[in-house]
């Protein structure tokens, strides 16, 4: 099962991952059109935390024992059989924010346009999530996890 | 075997090349001999260099240059005079010279002590530096020549000026040029023209005297000198004017 590994030592804090995440989850998937023409533009599903020189980008960890799966009352949050990713079915989500309440990483947020939860989907359909692909310092890696 | 290593081992250095002599010293040290006595030493270099264990080496005769260079662990006692480069980049322990010593003594010394009973040559204590608990100390019984403590970055340098002839000056010129750390104490007075422009002159305080005393007591005991009479005279303290003497040299 592939996961995004975050290596804080080499995160420069440039936030290009956020930019590319926004574009990937936009309507057009075109960077200029997303930034110049989409209102509201999608919120990034990756979040760069920063304190002095320590920075790292954090996105859903797709936990093995994911509290958001237990907490989701609509069944919108589900685990993808193939990839093992924890995904949110946007058609089922009603925005009760139970998942936000229980995620110990605080990586689920309210979508900027609809009343649904927004979280990392590992860029389903892409070989490599765009945050990983575009990290200029390989601080993010898409690797097989131990389990 | 054990009783053997406790017995002092004598090595006659007569007619030995320095490499041969040092090989013998290292071999003895490697065997664990605690006390090595070298006799008839006549200008052989690098004695005590690269000796990995911690014997005490007594030297009879005149050891050559770079005595105890990069020295770490062993200690050296020279019954007579030493040459140039004693304690070059020395790391620890002690070198005692019962007579005079030459130039660049204690160059870039990082730890340990060098005690010289009489006079030393030029460029002594250049670029001494201390680091954490490593604190290099040089005490010179007589006087020193020019460039004493040049580029000094740390540690302690004491010149006592004992048995000086009146004409002699206790330090030469350019004392403490480029100094940016450490302390120099000179027993008696130094003329302003003798000092490098990076040093400032101070009156030693109580703490300074206890610092001097800490090492001077050992020195006096080693050379059977009267500590009280030496310490009671006045000392001049030299400190760097700035820890960044060349900080303003450049246009950014």
């Amino acid at each position, binding site marked *: 099962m592939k996961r995004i590994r975050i290596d804080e030592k080499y995160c420069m804090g440039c936030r290009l991952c956020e*930019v590319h995440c926004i574009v990937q989850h936009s309507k057009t998937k075109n960077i200029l059109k997303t930034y110049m023409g989409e209102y509201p533009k999608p919120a990034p599903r990756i979040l760069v935390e920063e304190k002095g020189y320590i920075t790292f980008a954090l996105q859903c960890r797709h936990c093995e024992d994911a509290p958001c799966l237990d907490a989701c009352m609509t069944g919108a949050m589900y685990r993808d059989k193939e990839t093992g990713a924890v995904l949110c079915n946007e058609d089922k989500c009603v925005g009760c924010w139970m998942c936000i309440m229980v995620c110990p990483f605080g990586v689920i947020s309210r979508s900027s346009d609809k009343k649904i939860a927004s979280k990392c989907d590992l860029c389903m359909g892409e070989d490599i999530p765009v945050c990983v692909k575009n990290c200029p*310092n390989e601080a993010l890696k898409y690797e097989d996890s131990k389990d | 075997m054990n009783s053997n290593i406790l017995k002092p081992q004598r090595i006659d250095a007569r007619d030995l090349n*320095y490499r041969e002599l040092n090989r013998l010293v290292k071999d003895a040290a490697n065997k664990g001999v605690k006390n090595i006595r070298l006799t008839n030493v006549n200008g052989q270099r690098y004695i005590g260099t*690269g000796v990995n264990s911690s014997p005490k080496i007594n030297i009879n005769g005149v050891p050559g240059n770079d005595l105890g260079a*990069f020295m770490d662990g062993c200690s050296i006692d020279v019954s007579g005079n030493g040459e140039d480069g004693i304690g070059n980049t020395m790391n620890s322990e002690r070198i005692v010279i019962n007579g005079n010593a030459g130039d660049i003594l204690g160059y870039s010394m990082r730890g340990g002590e060098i005690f010289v009973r009489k006079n030393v040559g030029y460029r002594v204590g250049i*670029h001494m530096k201390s680091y954490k608990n490593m604190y290099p100390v040089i005490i010179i019984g007589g006087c020193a020549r020019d460039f004493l403590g040049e*580029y000094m970055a740390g540690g302690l340098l004491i010149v006592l000026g004992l048995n000086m002839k009146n004409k002699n000056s206790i330090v030469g010129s350019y004392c403490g040029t480029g100094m940016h*750390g450490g302390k120099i104490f000179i027993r008696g007075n130094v003329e302003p023209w003798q000092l490098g422009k990076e040093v400032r002159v101070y009156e030693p305080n109580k703490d300074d005297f206890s610092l001097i005393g800490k090492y001077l007591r050992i020195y006096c005991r080693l050379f059977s000198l009267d500590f009280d009479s030496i310490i009671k005279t006045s000392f001049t303290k030299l400190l760097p004017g700035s*820890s960044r003497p060349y900080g303003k040299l*450049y246009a950014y």
Partner: protein
Amino acid sequence: MAKRPTPTEFIVERDKDKCIACQVCVRMCSNDVHIYDADTNTVTSDNSRCVGCHFCETLCPTDAITIKKNESCFKPNANWSASVISDITKQAETGGVILTGMGCDKPYTIYWDHILLNASQVTNPSIDPLREPMELRRYIGRKPDKIELNYNKGKVELKTKLEKQLKLEVPIMFSAMSYGSISLNTCISLAKASHELGIFYNTGEGGLHKSLYKYGKNTIIQIASGRFGVHPEYLKTGAAIEIKIGQGAKPGIGGHLPGEKVSKEVSEARMIPEGTDAISPAPHHDIYSIEDLRQLIYALKEATDYEKPVGVKIAAVHNVVPIASGIARAGADYIAIDGMRGGTGAAPKVIRDNVGIPIEFAIAAVDARLREEGIRTNVSLIAAGGFRSSGDVIKAIALGADAVYIATSALIALGCSQCQKCYTGKCNWGIATQDPYLTKRLNPEIGVQRLKNLIKAWSLEIKDMLGGMGINSIDSLCGNRTHLRGIGLSDRELKILGIKSAGEPQ
């Protein structure tokens, strides 16, 4: 002080149609060139702060930024150029020495570009390196005058006891760069790449960080006048010891790492208190003569039980030939000669640009002289100072070098854009800085790969060129100047280089 003309060197051109105000440039520029205005949601630039490192340009996700040279400014004047005026103005303001970083950028003749290589045609066949074995391995160290062999039941054994040698899989090493002038991640990249390539890197005079001890077998440790970080463990760890007398970028002067670059970790490696200046005096005060040098060489050999080669690095200066001869006779196992285009973390500009001679002359002249004196095998020669390509490397070897040191090209492989601001400690690429916010920008995993790629690529090219000349071992090329021809050079230059002119047959 009243303002005087100091033209900005660069103009940051921002394509307004493409800038999405993502602020990556704002966050990443250590010189604070880019400014975000939240009210208008736009990013603007302060050109005067730009050093032209191209970091922002590289990261900009929409290619909205282009760094351009400021072409406006002064009336064209071959003598009073913009940089001359700007330097004078700066000095009039500060009264200080103008500092710079990296190697000399003045348009002196680069002799590598005036030397051509030979290739085989008809009378001697070229070798196809894809099919035939090619030997790039070199040994650095004193070679015996003659070799005696033991023949024992059909087995041949070397009877002569060889002096300690450094075994290089490729005749290229990473030249001295101290931890302090460059970041730990840069050191790690160099060390690890050397380990994996079977070559050596050089600590410079910065001591050895604890995390680098494990690469000791691929480390040349340096001893300079400041003796920073020189202690028994350090001497024990390196594969060879190098006494640094001089550096091509600043012959004759010392070094000076300002206190602000002496971080906790740097202070540990150098063994000086944190935040203090690290001053390397111009000379070693125990070396005022060749005899003194010999004394230090043997002190180091004695300290390490004659188990490691001891080399001496000097800058290429006018008298390099007799000096090198002296060093060879002083017992050095190798001499590294650094030409005037060699890099530096910080040097007075006037010295970098005006002192020394090019490595091409130095290596040719020294090799010739050592041969004349019959002591060439006593010592290995390493050429350094601005090697840009495998072509430069192979020419240096044909001129007489046993191997070359590269540093600037290694840094360029890691991202360096030659902005020459290493001395400010604000290197955006995380190379010449100790600022933890910046050093993390060089991920050693990437660094190692890039360095390995570079050396691998050069090796392939060298093999190709060797094959073309009909040579299957780099050893056979060393000092083999018959394979070189000069072009556009005067007779005198050709004579010093010891090569014929293009068009002259064998």
